[in-house]
């Protein structure tokens, strides 16, 4: 972990604006993903207002898509909470890796900046720190860009979602599955990860067939987590 030197934790309007501009090109893609979410959410039976509210308040793509899988007339609250927590647990690691710089900010700013932490702006801000440049403007300004375009995209998606009459014929019932799978395949690939995925997948299926409804997500996540802990870190 890089040592935090004196001025790298700086955060002012010009750094935030510059972070916003650096993440704006990526935000075009975020708009498309947002639209995909809006579309999928409407198909899962959420109304447009709730869908846009979810993107605004939760702002976490994979967790939001996963929530759609659990959505229905009766939502299993505990399973939903565990699922959202497990998917977003990587935020815990983002906060931990940013801590050397965040710790130099007053508490209100420290936690305020973390409101918008997500994968892309976290990665860019860590990159900036490793090059000896201030990174918190990227984190907050970039996060602001991602957030605005995510909500905007979601709103567009709900609009089209309500207009399409045969979503299944257009393959749109697969948006959620394909999105989550792309996230899995795009992640870290190694024999270790493959083993973890196999453990998670098999335990999930066993739970799906033999344990109470909706327990498969929790069982698979825990089994995979335990596999990862027992396996140790072969990369280092």
């Amino acid at each position, binding site marked *: 972990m890089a040592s935090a030197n004196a001025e790298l934790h700086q955060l002012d309007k010009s750094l935030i604006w510059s972070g916003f501009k650096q993440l704006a090109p990526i935000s075009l893609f975020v708009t498309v993903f947002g639209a995909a979410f809006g579309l999928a959410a409407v198909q899962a039976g959420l109304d447009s207002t709730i869908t846009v509210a979810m993107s605004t*308040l939760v702002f976490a793509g994979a967790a939001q898509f996963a929530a759609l899988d659990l959505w229905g007339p009766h939502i299993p609250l505990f399973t939903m909470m565990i699922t959202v927590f497990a998917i977003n647990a990587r935020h815990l690691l983002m906060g931990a890796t940013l801590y050397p710089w965040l710790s130099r900010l007053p508490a209100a700013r420290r936690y305020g900046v973390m409101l918008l932490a997500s994968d892309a702006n976290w990665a860019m801000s860590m990159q900036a720190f490793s090059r000896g440049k201030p990174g918190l403007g990227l984190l907050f300004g970039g996060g602001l860009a991602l957030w605005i375009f995510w909500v905007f995209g979601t709103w567009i998606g709900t609009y089209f979602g309500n207009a399409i009459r045969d979503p299944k014929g257009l393959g749109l019932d697969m948006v959620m599955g394909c999105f989550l799978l792309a996230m899995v395949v795009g992640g870290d690939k190694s024999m270790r990860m493959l083993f973890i995925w196999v453990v998670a997948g098999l335990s999930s299926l066993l739970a799906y067939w033999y344990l109470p409804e909706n327990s498969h997500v929790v069982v698979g996540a825990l089994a995979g987590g335990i596999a990862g802990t027992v396996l140790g870190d072969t990369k280092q």
Partner: protein
Amino acid sequence: MNIDVTGMGSLTVVLIMAVVTLATRWGGVYVMSFVPLSAPITRFIQAMSGSVLVALLAPLAATGDSEARIALLTTAVIMLILKRPLPAIACGILAAALMRQL
């Protein structure tokens, strides 16, 4: 415990999701101000956040119709080749659409 999505139910679910997510955004920073995350805990969190997606997908792939399976397979293959999510997802959806139109 189940929540009915009638009335304020669905908004309640969204608010709960928001609070849980916020806890993950703040939690890492908060815990670090007392004690650094240990290596095994870091490994557990890393493995778990990927596994939860696999756990969601496994039944989808195992119980879905053949169109669904082709869509997932297409997404996985294109993602492995191009390493870019947008074309991978788009082709997966397109594959399902084409098969359903035939």
